[in-house]
């Protein structure tokens, strides 16, 4: 099996249904199709070189950001707008088809994950896989997230940055 598409933590594998492996190009197509995307940004990218890329992506595609863990402080400190939620809180809202969305404009249809701690992120993605047929999930981490609908593969930093750059430019 291709190491790039074994879940980063291999035992996260949950059954026959696995995430689609995406390239920046297919990710871009998903973004283009999305009407109300949302970006969930966790504390793993706090001191990461990719933080700026992620923010650029959000800006370019006009995606509101939810910050999880204590990520809000970093973003706030850098004057980047986000709304703080616990990752379980935001996932709980996302699974409700009737939730009004982060800006009150209706439930989101595409949720990007970046920087959420792998295993709790994986659990959140599992929730959405099972209980949120109304939206798609796409992970932008350098880890293959088999519980997402679509995921980048496992990568080293350099490749990852290139992936993100492509989405940001």
């Amino acid at each position: 099996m291709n190491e790039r598409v074994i879940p980063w933590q291999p035992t996260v594998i949950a059954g026959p249904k696995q995430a689609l492996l995406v390239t920046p190009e297919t990710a871009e197509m998903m973004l283009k199709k999305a009407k109300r995307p949302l970006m969930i940004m966790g504390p793993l990218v706090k001191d990461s070189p990719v933080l700026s890329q992620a923010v650029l992506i959000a800006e370019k595609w006009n995606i509101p950001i939810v910050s999880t863990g204590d990520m809000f402080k970093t973003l706030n400190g850098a004057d980047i707008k986000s709304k703080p939620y616990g990752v379980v809180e935001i996932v709980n809202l996302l699974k409700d088809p009737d939730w009004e969305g982060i800006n009150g404009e209706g439930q989101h249809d595409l949720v990007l994950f970046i920087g959420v701690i792998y295993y709790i992120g994986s659990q959140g993605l599992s929730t959405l896989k099972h209980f949120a047929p109304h939206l798609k999930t796409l992970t932008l981490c350098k880890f293959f997230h088999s519980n997402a609908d679509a995921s980048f593969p496992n990568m080293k930093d350099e490749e990852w940055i290139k992936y993100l750059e492509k989405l940001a430019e």
Partner: protein
Amino acid sequence: MITVTPKNKPKEFKNDFWKSKNFKVSIGEIVDKKGMDTPSESVGPTPKPDVTALRSWDMKLLEKYGPFYAPFCDMCCLCTYGKCDLTAGKKGACGIDIEAQQARMVLLACCIGAAAHSAHARHLLEYLIEKKGKDFPLDFGMNIDIEAPIIRTVIGKIPKTLGDLREAMDYMEEQNLHLLSACHTGQEGKSVDFESKAFHAGLMDTLGMEIGDIAQIAALNLPKGDADAPLVELGMGSINKDKPVVLCIGHNVAPGAGIVDYLEDEELEDEVEVCGICCAALDITRYNKNAKVVGPISKQLKFVRSGVADVIVVDEQCVRTDILEEAKKNKAAVIATTDKICLGLPDMTNEDADKIVSQLVNEEIEGALILNPDKVGEVATRVAMKIAKDREALKLLPDLDEIIEMAKECTECGWCQRVCPNSQPMMEAVVAAGKGDFSNFVDLYEYDVCYACGRCEQECERDLPLISMLTKVGEHYVKDEKYNVRAGRGPVQDVEIRRVGAPIVLGDIPGVIAFVGCSNYPEGGEDVAKMAEEFLERNYIVVTSGCGAMSIGEYRDEEGKTLYEKYSGDFDARGLVNVGSCVSNSHIAGACIKIANIFAKKPLEGNFEEIADYILNRVGACGVAWGAYSQKAASIATGVNRWGIPVVIGPHGSKYRRLFLGRTDKKEKWNLNDLRSGEVIEGEPAPEHLLYAAENRGEATVMIAKLCIRPNDTSKGRQIKLNQYIDLHRKYFGTIPDDISRFIRNEKDIPITYKKDVRNMLEEVGWEPRALPQEPSTMAFREKARGK
């Protein structure tokens, strides 16, 4: 005296009997001398509740705190119709859907968790009755009248003797059987009913824990709510390696007590070092303060690898299942002591001690199963004394040069990190070590950031003994691993409750925070200690138990003091209260129950719902199980949830598959019944969640503060609580929290320090003042409450 004698077994088909309106019993004579007594003239509606008796309370909780499921597996593999794929709304061959399946797994975990505690309690109880007789009194002294608040509430009676506890145990066992049965294929079908049963399993768990702990406190004369319980030594460095060392791992105090007794009888106290890991350690130090605590479960593999222990005595729970194999690596002798862990060893219970000792010393047997704690005491001691000298010569851990050589073999495949539950950078540590730099290893070692689960080592393609390397580096570089922990004091005294009851309910003490559970920490035990410190400094009461209590003890403040040295053991503001081992967790719920009883004069007996409702709406307590890992933690959390206490768990807790989350965007969910006025009133999300998994310490800290808010807070109390919440939010998030307006009922609730900012925020959202409730409740109004 007025006595009630519910029949031995709950009557499933007559539960209307117990539920009937204003149920009161006043029989003029003692009908059954054997049973327990009731203290007053009335017993509430639900003594010995059966599986469905508290279902309506559960449904109220579930309505507010909807179960949130995060499936850990897409399939079910419980029967041979399967495995079944439950994705995309598909049902299994038995008809179950993914939601109910997750809930079933939660119920199963809670049943197993409750069984672990309660089988332990039963075992202990029968052992103690054997030793002390069934009439041995449960007397905790002057300051504790309510020895068994959980038994009183659940069973509806007051146990006076060890023997009385059997009735509670019997009841618990029957309930557990019914609950486990519901996990069978083709039984319960709806997730909410699985959750109601999980609540019941959790309640049985709190009951089982209380039975176990009060039995051992009474019979073994452990501290009885003593705030000044002695400080005992803690840490790998506190063990004197020059003596023969007996290590106890597990939870059952009996074998450890057997060892301590033997040493005393033979006057060998100074010759042999007795130490423990996990709750057994805590309980042995409650029995004898000279025993030492190695540390929490995360020390287990490291300490065993260090070779310091000559004899390893395992009893039950939290024991590495490969202990025999690990012990063999450095020729430590292993003694198994309970039916729970037999390890395939020969049963030597009825053999002569001399023979067992000789067979162990000569390695004629792989280890011994000895089911008699007194014999364990003798054999363990004698074997340790015999083999200690020879074992000294064993080169236990690789030396630093060897480590460098081994580390050079690393292929940098990276799999150690991928299989690490916490994705800790083991590879980096190895690679650096290969270059002679041990600092990364030290980082992993300190505070058990690497908790030595051994998965990386299992995976390593070069078979590097990563844990041994880690241990050696730690041994060499981390100096002064000597800490302390206050011996478990057991219950909170009634008099303490009286003292703090008012300030807690009124909010002057912003909350009671309990740090409990295991050390499955995402980033090491320091996080727990820092949280404890933070809340201590902020005037909260901090309670702790189990591995959490040890992790807190392994931390020193800037002045080099442990928190136990710095803060008193009083159940009071800025008190750091170690109740004891896992089974002592019952005293945490117990304290909340006592608040309801002592402060609000709520009768306990058979009165579960009213008590839980009181706690949920009035007692600002919050549990934190930052490293929750096992089924026990699942049942503990679920149990205290049913009692109305919210719990915050660490990120791994998401793998329990279920949380209880509130929805602040749904205002109607927070309405309350004001029992005084008889009106439905607008409430607030307080507490906002019942079971919450936080991603990291910052998030957790802020959430804990928030979860101490209660509808019944006085304005002064609310101010103080909000002040803390805002403070912490500012610290960890940089801002005043957006949702502050939800918790401000009227001007008086606004914390003075933040008055201006908060006022502005209120204005922005068009805030309107609302009335303070008088008697906020989640229960139905009284007329209906009992009648239904």
